[in-house]
């Protein structure tokens, strides 16, 4: 029984369930990423405050979000919060959990993007009489966004992959949908191969685009500084 013939035989049963799972995966991804972007902006804003206590809180948050597995955070949100009187639907718990964790990574991306700009850009803007807000929107953000696009895209695909963890708090997204199909059909290999392929064809184009953007960026605008490959980003890029 070949892979294709198995899929062909079962397509009418599997396709609607997998598509429903896929939809949930996309909802978790979109929701989680939007939340993460907003929280990352807030985190970076807090970081820029002078108040030491506020900054300490920000740092503690980053340490927790980076040091604890997503699964644990999802379990706490979904299973432990009800004990405190707050019951979240699984989908919402998933979005919040993914958003909270990725906020920490995206905050790092935002910071790196703005730090990559020479200090003179901000100074020259202020010196010419632009307001701080105009300086941010007209001068700093358009430049920083170039540095952020590729890593943001990478984080988006990572988040999409990590949304599969929501299967373990019973969100019937793609991975859980295929796990259920598997336990009925006893055809684990074709089912999970198909699932893996679906993920691959969502994540791979994004990672190719990210690589192209990153490559463009390194050649533009030409910098006088030597172009050493950035080892720090090797984990995220390429």
């Amino acid at each position, binding site marked *: 029984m070949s892979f294709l013939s198995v899929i062909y035989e079962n397509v009418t049963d599997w396709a609607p369930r997998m598509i429903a799972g896929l939809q949930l995966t996309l909802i978790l991804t979109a929701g989680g990423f939007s939340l993460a972007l907003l929280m990352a902006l807030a985190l970076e804003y807090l970081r820029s405050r002078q108040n030491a206590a506020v900054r300490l809180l920000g740092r503690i948050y980053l340490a927790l979000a*980076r040091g604890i597995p997503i699964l*644990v955070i999802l379990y706490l949100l979904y299973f432990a919060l009800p004990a405190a009187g707050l019951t979240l639907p699984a989908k919402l718990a998933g979005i919040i959990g993914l958003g909270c964790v990725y906020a920490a990574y995206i905050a790092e991306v935002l910071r790196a993007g703005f730090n990559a700009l020479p200090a003179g850009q901000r100074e020259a803007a202020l010196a010419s009489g632009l307001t701080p807000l105009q300086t941010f929107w007209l001068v700093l953000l358009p430049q920083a966004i170039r540095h952020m696009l590729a890593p943001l895209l990478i984080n988006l695909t990572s988040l999409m992959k990590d949304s*599969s963890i929501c299967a373990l708090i019973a969100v019937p997204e793609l991975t859980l949908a295929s796990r259920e199909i598997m336990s009925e059909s006893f055809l684990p290999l074709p089912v*999970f191969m198909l699932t893996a392929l679906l*993920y691959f064809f969502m994540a791979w184009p994004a990672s190719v685009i990210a690589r192209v953007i990153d490559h463009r960026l390194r050649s533009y605008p030409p910098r006088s500084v030597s172009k050493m490959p950035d080892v720090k980003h090797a984990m995220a890029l390429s």
Partner: protein
Amino acid sequence: MDSSLMNAVVDALLSGAVTTIKVTAGALAVALCIGIALSAAAFLTSNFVVHAAVRIYVEALRNVPSLTFLFLLYFGLAALGFRLSSMVAAILGLGLIGGAITIDIFRSGFQAVPSGQAEAAASIGLTPLAAFRLIILPQGLRFALPSLGNYAIALIKDTSLVAAIAAPEIMFNARQLVNETFETAFIYGAAALVYLFLTMSVAQGVSLLERRLEVR
């Protein structure tokens, strides 16, 4: 909170932590071996087939969720007649995924070594292999260290997923204990602290190592 619960939690999380550490160490070893071997092969040869094969391996495993891949490995191979134990599937699965990550980390590390180093090594008559082993590799490893540290931390966190294929690590044990005691917040909170301790220890260790290597 009675002391028998406390004891049960400590027991469960400690034995879980031991498994977590075993899985992490095993997967790390697999990932590093694959990463070094394949990145070195890609560095030393311009053979198209080698490069294409490495690329396919990397792209395939970096664009599929760890959990999906673990299911594929654990349930899929069993259907083919290869019954892997939970532990073996966990180590192999996370190790294979890690290999795809560490290949890129090592490659960037090797590329960060200034090209003059390779030229100087060639000019004193070292063979390409010797030049790689004696000159490029030691320097490249140093450049790769921070990213390897980040990878190790991500790996510890990813081991929590192998609970889903019944490997008795921290989250698996925690979940079982919750099912018996219903002390949800306390047990998962404690599990979070254990992970935090593990990941922060690795972060500390790596930054110590980095500083040690820098002073030379």
